C-alpha cells in the first residue's frame, strides 16, 4: 500500500500538481479512516487531501484511475499477475455479466443485435447495460493485443468507428417516432436531444475508461500514466491546443479574468499612500479641539491606461489572438479605453464589434468572419499592416496609450517596416510585443521578432494562460 501510494503521489507531482509532504501525510491519515472497500470515499479522501485546486481535478482523476481502477477491493498490487491471466480474468468477469438483459450472452450477438441493444440502453438510460455494452464494444472492435505499443486514442477511434454513434441520434429519433412517443413541442424535443447527447457522451466515456483499464493491465500503471499525462489547463500551449483543450481553456479563462480583475482593482486601491492631505487633516482636527491627532493622506488615483491591441489573426496564431482579446475585454474595466485592431496582411479596426454586444464570444466570432483583413493574398504581412495602422490610426497613439502587438512576427519575408514600431514607441507610453512561440524559435526562418522587438519596451513569450495572466497583471 505504501509503495503504491508513493508511486501515486510521485505521478501526481509529475503531472504538475503541487503535493507537499504534509498533504501526503494527511492523505495517508485520511485513507486509514475510510473503509477500503468504499471506492468513492477512498477517491474523495485522496482528492480532498492532495488536490487543492479545482482545475487540477481532471489530472487527478486520470492518475487515480490508472493507479487504482483495476485493483481489487483491497487495492493490493499483484506483481506476479501477468497480462495473459488478466485477459482471462476480464473475460470471466464479463461472462458473469453485470447488469441486466443477459449481458453474459453478448459474445454470441451479431453486430446488428448489439447495436439495437445499445440503442435500447441509450433510450432507457440503462447505466448497467451501457457499461456492459461498452466492455463488449471494446473487446469486439478495438482489436487490442497485449504488448502492442499503440496509444489509447487509436483503439478509441477504432471502436467508435465501428459503433457509428453519430448516426445513433437519428436512429433513436426514428425509433421514437415509430413508437409514437415523439415529443410534441420544440422545447421538449430539445430537452430530449440534450438528454440523448448526454447519454452518448457518457457511453463514450465508458468506452474510453474501458480502454484505459485494459491498457493499464497490459502495460502497468507507471508506463500508462506517463502516456496519459496531459498538461494542466494553464500550461496548455495556445498554438498546439486540441479542440478539447481549447474548450477547457475557455472554461479556465472566465474564473481567471474574475480573479485578475479583483486583484487589479485591489492593487489600484491599496498600497499607495500619497502625501499629507492638509485640508482634510485640519478639518478632522476639529474633533480633537484643533489638535491634528488624525493625519489624513492623499490617495492618488492613478490614471487607467488606454490600451490598443493590434493582433495578427492569421491561422497559426489565431487562437492566441482570440484568447488575448477575450482576456483584455473581460477586464476592460481596468483600462480607460480599449481599442482593438486585427490584421493578416490588411488591417481593420474591430472595437465596434465588442461595443455592440456584451457577449465576448459573439464579438470574437464576428471578428473572425467579418473583419476585412486580407489585402493581397492572406499571408501575414506585418510590414504592410503596421504601415496601414500608422497611416490611419497613428494620430490616436498618445502619451497615455499602451500598445500591445500580438503575433509570431513571421513576416513571410516581406519588408519589415520596423520604423512604425519605433515611431509608436516614441509617441506611446509603452509598446509591448507578445509572442506565442517558444523563445527558442524566435528569429529563426522568417521570424523577425528581434527586429521589431528592439524598438519595443519588451517582448514577452506568451505560450499559455499562465504567462498571459502574468503579463496582463503587469500591464494594468
Amino acid at each position, binding site marked *: 500500500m505504501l509503495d503504491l501510494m508513493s508511486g501515486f503521489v510521485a505521478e501526481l507531482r509529475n503531472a504538475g500538481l*503541487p503535493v*507537499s509532504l*504534509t*498533504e501526503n501525510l*494527511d492523505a495517508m*491519515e*485520511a485513507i486509514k*479512516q*475510510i*473503509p477500503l472497500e*468504499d471506492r*468513492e*470515499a477512498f477517491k*474523495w*479522501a485522496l*482528492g*480532498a*487531501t492532495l*488536490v*487543492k*485546486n*479545482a482545475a487540477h*481535478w481532471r489530472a487527478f482523476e486520470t492518475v487515480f484511475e490508472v493507479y487504482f481502477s483495476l485493483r481489487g477491493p483491497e487495492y493490493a498490487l499483484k506483481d506476479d499477475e501477468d497480462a495473459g491471466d488478466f485477459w482471462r480474468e476480464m473475460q470471466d468477469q464479463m461472462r458473469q455479466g453485470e447488469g441486466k438483459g443477459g449481458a453474459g450472452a453478448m459474445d454470441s450477438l451479431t453486430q446488428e443485435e448489439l447495436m439495437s441493444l445499445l440503442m435500447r440502453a441509450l433510450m432507457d438510460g440503462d447505466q448497467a447495460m451501457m457499461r456492459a455494452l461498452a466492455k463488449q464494444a471494446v473487446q469486439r472492435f478495438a482489436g487490442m493485443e497485449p504488448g502492442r505499443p499503440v496509444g489509447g486514442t487509436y483503439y478509441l477511434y477504432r471502436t467508435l468507428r465501428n459503433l457509428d454513434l453519430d448516426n445513433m441520434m437519428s436512429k433513436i429519433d426514428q425509433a421514437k417516432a415509430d413508437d409514437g412517443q415523439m415529443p410534441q*413541442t*420544440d*422545447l421538449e*424535443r*430539445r*430537452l430530449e*436531444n*440534450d*438528454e440523448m447527447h*448526454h447519454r452518448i457522451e457518457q457511453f463514450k466515456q465508458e468506452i474510453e475508461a474501458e480502454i484505459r483499464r485494459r491498457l493499464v493491465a497490459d502495460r502497468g500503471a507507471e508506463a500508462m500514466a506517463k502516456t496519459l499525462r496531459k498538461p494542466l489547463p494553464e500550461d496548455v500551449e495556445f498554438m498546439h491546443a486540441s479542440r478539447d483543450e481549447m474548450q477547457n481553456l475557455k472554461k479556465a479563462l472566465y*474564473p481567471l479574468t*474574475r*480573479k485578475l480583475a*479583483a*486583484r487589479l482593482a*485591489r492593487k489600484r486601491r*491599496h498600497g499607495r499612500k500619497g502625501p499629507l492631505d492638509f485640508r482634510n487633516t485640519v478639518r478632522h482636527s476639529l474633533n480633537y479641539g484643533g489638535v491634528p491627532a488624525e493625519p489624513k493622506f492623499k490617495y492618488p488615483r492613478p490614471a487607467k491606461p488606454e490600451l490598443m491591441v493590434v493582433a495578427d489573426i492569421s491561422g497559426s496564431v489565431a487562437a492566441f489572438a482570440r484568447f488575448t482579446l477575450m482576456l483584455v475585454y473581460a477586464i476592460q474595466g481596468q483600462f480607460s479605453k480599449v481599442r482593438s485592431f486585427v490584421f493578416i496582411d490588411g488591417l481593420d479596426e474591430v472595437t465596434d464589434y465588442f461595443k455592440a*454586444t*456584451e*457577449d465576448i*464570444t459573439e464579438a470574437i466570432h464576428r471578428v473572425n468572419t467579418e473583419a476585412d483583413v486580407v489585402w493581397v493574398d492572406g499571408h501575414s504581412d506585418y510590414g504592410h499592416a503596421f504601415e496601414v495602422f500608422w497611416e490611419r490610426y497613428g494620430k490616436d497613439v498618445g502619451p497615455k496609450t499602451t500598445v500591445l502587438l500580438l503575433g509570431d512576427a513571421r513576416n513571410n519575408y516581406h519588408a519589415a517596416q520596423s520604423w512604425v514600431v519605433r515611431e509608436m514607441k516614441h509617441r506611446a507610453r509603452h509598446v509591448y510585443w507578445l509572442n506565442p512561440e517558444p523563445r527558442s524559435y524566435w528569429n529563426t526562418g522568417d521570424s523577425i521578432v528581434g527586429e521589431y522587438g528592439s524598438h519595443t519596451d519588451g517582448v514577452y513569450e506568451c505560450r499559455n494562460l499562465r504567462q498571459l495572466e502574468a503579463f496582463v497583471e503587469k500591464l494594468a
Partner: protein
Amino acid sequence: MGNRFDSVQAVRDGLKKVNYLADDGIASVAFLADRLGKPVLVEGPAGTGKTQLAKSIADLTGARLIRLQCYEGLDESKALYEWNYKKQLLRIQADKNSDSWSEVHDDIFSEEFLLTRPLLEAIRADDPVVLLIDEVDRVEVETEALLLEILSEYQVSIPELGTITAKQIPLVFLTSNNTRELSEALKRRCLYLHVDYPDMDREKEIVLAKVEGITEHLADQIARIVRSIRQLDLKKAPSVSETIDWARTLMLLGIEHIDAEQAKETLHILLKYQTDIAKAAKELSSDK
C-alpha cells in the same frame, strides 16, 4: 479526534434528514473533517450550497453555528478578540486611590475585559460548535495569516493572557468563491472540497426536497431545462438557489407543465444578465 459520525453513509443520511442532499464527495469530506480534525475549504460557484452545508452540518450535529463573514479590511479586533478599553478606563478611574499600579495592570488584562469575536468564541465554547468562515477569499492575503494558528492548532495566542486552547475541536468550514487564489499555507491546512453544480438527478431531488408540493414531472422538467441552460456559454450560469426560486415561481403561477413560452417568460428568475436571457430564450425555442 472527534467521532461525530459513524460512516460516510451516516453523514449522507443525516444530511438528508435536515434537507441537504449531499453527493459522495460532500459526505466523504465532511466525514473526514470530523475524523481527522481538520478544517474544510469549500470552493465552487456561487449558489451551490456551500454555506448551507455548514449550516446543515451544525443542524445535524446539534451544534451551535458561529459565523465569521469575511470582507476586505477584516482585522483581528473583529475576527479574534479585542480589549474592552472603555471598561478598562472605567476600572482605572474607579479605583484611582486604592490600588497600586501593578494590581490594576494585572486586573484590566483579565478575561473580564476581553471581548471575544467569532474565532475566539468558537475556541472557547464549551458546547459543540461549527465554525463557518464565509467567503474567505474576500480578505487580503495578509489577513489570512490570522486564521492559520486557529486552523492548525485550534488555539489563539493573546500576548497579555497567554494561549487559549480549544476545549473541544470544532468542525470548521471555510467557503470561497474563488475570486483569488488562496495562499498555499491556508490550503495546506485544510481538506479541499470543490462543490460544483449538481448533476441532473441530484438537482431534481433537491427541487423535490426543497419545494413543497411540487410534482415529480415538473421537477424533472425543471432539472432538464436548467441543465440545458447551463450548457450554454453564459456569463453566469443559473445556481441551485436560482433553480429553486424558479421552481417556486412556477408553483405559484400554477404551472404543471412548462412549455417554451412559459419558460421564456420566467427566465429572468434563472438568469440575471440581459444577454444571457436573450441567448437562452433563443436556444430554448429552437431545437438543435
